[in-house]
């Protein structure tokens, strides 16, 4: 009898700080504020926390965080690599730890000061170790350049257009316009603004790129049994998966036989195999959107449509409220905040609690994904 994580654990607390271009607090303070908010939301005392998970790119480590918030003895800690690909895996690692009795109360978090802090690609000292030697000298400098390369090929192969990418940007912006916590609250986007905005890396323009953000988020994971006694309605972790495909090369996956089918495809196969439902049963999705082209690629990878059909899927308001698959209902990385995708996890929880600012009526299932284009992760949440 194989062990399963299916519904064995639940997210019972979520917390976040303000999102802004500049916040005065340090990353460590923002992390602690988000974590304490999530614990307060769950009604669990900090001294009960015995597990932590975050990203390898997280600079506040669990030693500092545990000490600052007053955690008890910690028996599990984990960090997930590959930047935005790690978000959902933090929940997955804690779910596994709690389900196997290694810990009882897990906290996952991400704190970032990218709005006011330095951009990693500007650090020339770290530009050039492997694999930078194959791309950086030629001026492929930023993640936007690296993903734009795949986007151009995708558009060429499948007839995708800038209008399709606009559909993605617009859906996220429309949701952010409904979310007072979003950086783009009350800042509508129009097609004309999109089409005339400055280019960042052709074919990607300003609005195809996520927001540089200061802010932090956290969530709390406990066993399904414990969750029944918590303050909030439990949101069950139904299925979890990570994905690092054969011969994959992070960000610049150009040497693979098929660079347009990336880690999402690998994660998806495992995710759905473990689940009681399929893509057709998903009420709302939070899909990692550091760049607009990641959405059509992810829609294909996670099985919402066939290969090459992701762009066409965005037509006719499919990603909007009432559409075939409302996405990124808090505004996503493109318009709520870019905190390496952690806001997508918390937004998924809000949807299944019924408290989103863009609530999908009776939402009971939600897919949350981490970054496509790098070794990734995903979770299925259910009410």
């Amino acid at each position, binding site marked *: 009898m194989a062990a399963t994580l299916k519904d064995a654990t639940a997210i019972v607390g979520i917390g976040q700080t303000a999102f802004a271009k500049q916040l005065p607090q340090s990353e460590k303070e923002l992390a602690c504020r988000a974590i304490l908010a999530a614990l307060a939301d769950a009604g669990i005392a900090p001294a009960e926390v015995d597990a932590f998970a975050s990203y390898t790119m997280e600079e506040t480590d669990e030693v500092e965080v545990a000490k600052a918030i007053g955690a008890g003895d910690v028996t599990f800690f984990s960090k997930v690599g590959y930047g935005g690909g790690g978000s959902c895996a933090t929940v997955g690692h804690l779910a596994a730890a709690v389900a196997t009795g290694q810990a009882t109360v897990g906290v996952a978090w991400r704190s970032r000061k990218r709005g006011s802090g330095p951009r990693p690609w500007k650090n020339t000292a770290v530009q050039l170790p492997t694999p*930078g030697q194959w791309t950086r000298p*030629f*001026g492929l*400098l930023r993640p936007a350049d690296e993903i734009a390369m795949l986007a151009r*090929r995708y558009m*060429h192969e499948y007839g995708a257009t800038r209008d399709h990418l606009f559909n993605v940007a617009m859906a996220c912006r429309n949701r952010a316009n409904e979310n007072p916590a979003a950086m783009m609250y009350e800042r509508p986007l129009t097609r004309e603004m999109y089409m005339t905005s400055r*280019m960042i890396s052709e074919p990607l323009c300003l609005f195809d790129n996520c927001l540089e953000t200061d802010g932090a988020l956290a969530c709390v994971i406990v066993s399904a049994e414990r969750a029944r006694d918590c303050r909030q309605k439990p949101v069950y972790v139904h299925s979890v998966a990570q994905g690092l495909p054969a011969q994959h090369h992070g960000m610049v996956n150009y*040497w693979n036989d098929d660079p347009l089918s990336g880690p999402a495809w690998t994660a998806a196969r495992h995710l759905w195999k473990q689940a009681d439902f399929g893509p057709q049963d998903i009420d709302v999705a939070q899909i990692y959107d550091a760049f607009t082209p990641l959405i059509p690629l992810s829609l294909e990878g996670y099985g919402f449509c066939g290969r090459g059909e992701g762009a066409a899927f965005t037509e006719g308001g499919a990603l909007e409220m009432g559409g075939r698959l409302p996405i990124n209902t808090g505004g996503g990385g493109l318009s709520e905040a870019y905190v390496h995708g952690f806001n997508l996890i918390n937004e998924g929880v809000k949807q299944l609690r019924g408290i989103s600012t863009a609530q999908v009526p009776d939402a009971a299932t939600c897919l949350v994904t981490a970054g496509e284009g790098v070794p990734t992760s995903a979770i299925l949440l259910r009410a």
Partner: protein
Amino acid sequence: MTTTAPADGLLLPVPDEDGAPFWEYAARGELRVQACAACGRLRFPPRPCCPHCQSFESEWRPMSGRGRIWSYVRPHPPLLPAYAAQAPYNVILVELAEAPGIRLAGNLVTSADAPLDSVDPARLRIGARVQVVFAETGGVTVPRWILEKA
């Protein structure tokens, strides 16, 4: 070969142990790709062993230097200063004629020494045939690409 660096201040490749031969051959004006000495399969980027037969024996096979543009981008500022000075420039991915799965990042230029933005963007096209040239920048030789004569 080139005499002056046309683009001082561009980032220079910092080879690792596996990649060093690529740059050594480039300095001699040769485009070579790592191949497994046991099963013969080409692989890129270079690495210690063959993903197909796990052999640690490898050799560096000369390429014709011909290929086709698989995709391209045109970065705009904000960029590192040396790149911003030539922006918007192009970066292309070249699918090698001998090995379609191997796609080298590079720049399409009008001649080896020409600036990164020397080609009219209207001439950038997926599928266009290109030919390797070698340019010296900051004392290091890097492959660049010119459109093959029709």
